[in-house]
């Protein structure tokens, strides 16, 4: 019985996936601690407990995410790009373009026929294309990050925001809030601003269908739908697993390859 694991220590959340070959045994998402070691230990331990396993049972672990170089127990580290690519391909086998929006980063990855990364682009500019941006905005509006995603549906007239910079966009949000604009229009405007940013990355790399979205922000239905509208293409939903786990899943799959490669 080959047990493998992937551990994605992100800036905001840490994720672990434990697999037995192609079968997922357990998954876990926790909020990242200040120290990556702690996050890694905790998230893996939780996942192992769920699976009824112990660390020595796991044969190969791949680490990824911002804290990847500081995870004590991994056998190999890979960048988030490769892991998300691998994970997304498993979740949506027809995927050619992957949009991964996490807490600190937004990446668009293109895959070739065999599922290898043929090109990628990451957001270097201002931070308005990141999950963190949404969190700051949600906090500004006194709603939860889940609610922020949902408000878009109710809005008839999303507000157009200064989408270039978090600090500045915030000033705008405050202003609109104080001027009595409807919460849903502001929220929808924020999701739209985000989608606009991301769509620029997507266009820069060139769209190829199918498109699939991973990372925490893919759970924000407002961004998801706005992005579909701007791109003019449907985005495939990952149904087999929470898309926020795609990085950890990819890491686990890469661990699996490693084991196979050895055998």
């Amino acid at each position, binding site marked *: 019985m080959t047990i493998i694991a992937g551990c994605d220590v992100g800036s905001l959340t840490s994720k672990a996936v434990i697999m037995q070959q192609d079968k997922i045994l357990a998954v876990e998402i926790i909020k990242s601690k*200040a120290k990556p070691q702690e996050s890694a230990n905790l998230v893996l331990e939780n996942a192992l407990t769920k699976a009824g396993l112990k660390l020595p049972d796991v044969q190969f672990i791949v680490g990824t995410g911002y804290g990847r170089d500081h995870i004590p127990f991994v056998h190999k580290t890979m960048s988030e790009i490769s892991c998300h690519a691998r994970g997304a391909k498993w979740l949506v086998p027809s995927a050619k373009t992957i949009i991964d929006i996490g807490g600190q980063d937004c990446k668009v990855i293109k895959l070739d026929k065999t599922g290898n990364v043929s090109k990628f682009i990451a957001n270097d500019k201002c931070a308005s294309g990141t999950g963190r941006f949404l969190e700051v905005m949600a906090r500004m509006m006194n709603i939860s990050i889940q609610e922020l995603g949902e408000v878009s549906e109710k809005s008839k007239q999303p507000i157009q925001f200064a989408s270039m910079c*978090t600090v500045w966009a*915030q000033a705008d949000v405050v202003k609109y809030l104080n001027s009595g604009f409807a919460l849903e229009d502001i929220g929808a405007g924020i999701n739209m601003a985000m989608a606009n940013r991301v769509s620029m990355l997507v266009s820069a790399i060139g769209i190829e269908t199918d498109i699939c979205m991973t990372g925490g922000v893919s759970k924000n239905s407002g961004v998801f739908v706005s992005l579909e509208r701007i791109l003019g293409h449907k985005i495939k939903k990952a149904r087999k697993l929470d898309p926020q786990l795609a990085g950890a899943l990819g890491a686990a799959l890469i661990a699996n390859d490693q084991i196979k490669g050895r055998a």
Partner: protein
Amino acid sequence: MIVAGCDLGSQTVKVVIMDDMRLLAKTVIPATTQPEKVVEEALNLTLDQANLRMSDIQRFVATGYGQKQVSFATQTASEIVCHARGALWHLGSVRTIIDIGGQDAKAIKIDGQGKVLRYQYNDKCAAGTGRFLQIMADALEIQLDDMGKIAEKFTESITISNQCVVFAETEVVSLINDGKKVPDILNALHKALAARVASLVKGIGSIEQDVLMTGGVAKNRGVFHALEETLGVRIQQPEGMDPQINGAIGAALIAS
């Protein structure tokens, strides 16, 4: 004459009640998305403290981001003017005011009569605001109030350069990952913020003494000292008083 001033900030709402030049009572509570309601709440709290009733207030001036939303205010005034007035009330010799709030930082230059000569807000994309510190405190899992104290224990000097709040946060995350110590990181953050604000102050011409620092961030000793060091001048704070309410005091003074 009994008057009230209210500073409706991005993060906190400040209300003061004054009798002529005397401060009777003050309240600072977090801002919400319903500006009118919070102000009412803050005002009631302040009235209670001062043992007064709404009908005792003869004039009520509002300032800050949400100034226009307070329908029962008798007048509104710009933040810059209120901060200038408030500062002059604290310290007659003040010529330069540095105000760092949650949303923006401002440098204001005034003359002896309190007339605003020059002023400047933080540059776009600049991380020189209280919000920046708050996000960093979250990332480091420490309390906002403790930042200054913890930073004093720093041993190694490091540089945080990114100009964007969210990216600075990533930088902080990588510093933690590299095993840097929290006091050192905090010290670097304070220096970074101080540098941003210092350029603002320098941008409006030569620094004229006395310099007074106000706004919520003035409570952070780390930023305060870093700013003194960067500017090379002594900076004062409103004595025996919360620097956060300076704008509200200015508003009240305008009312009377």
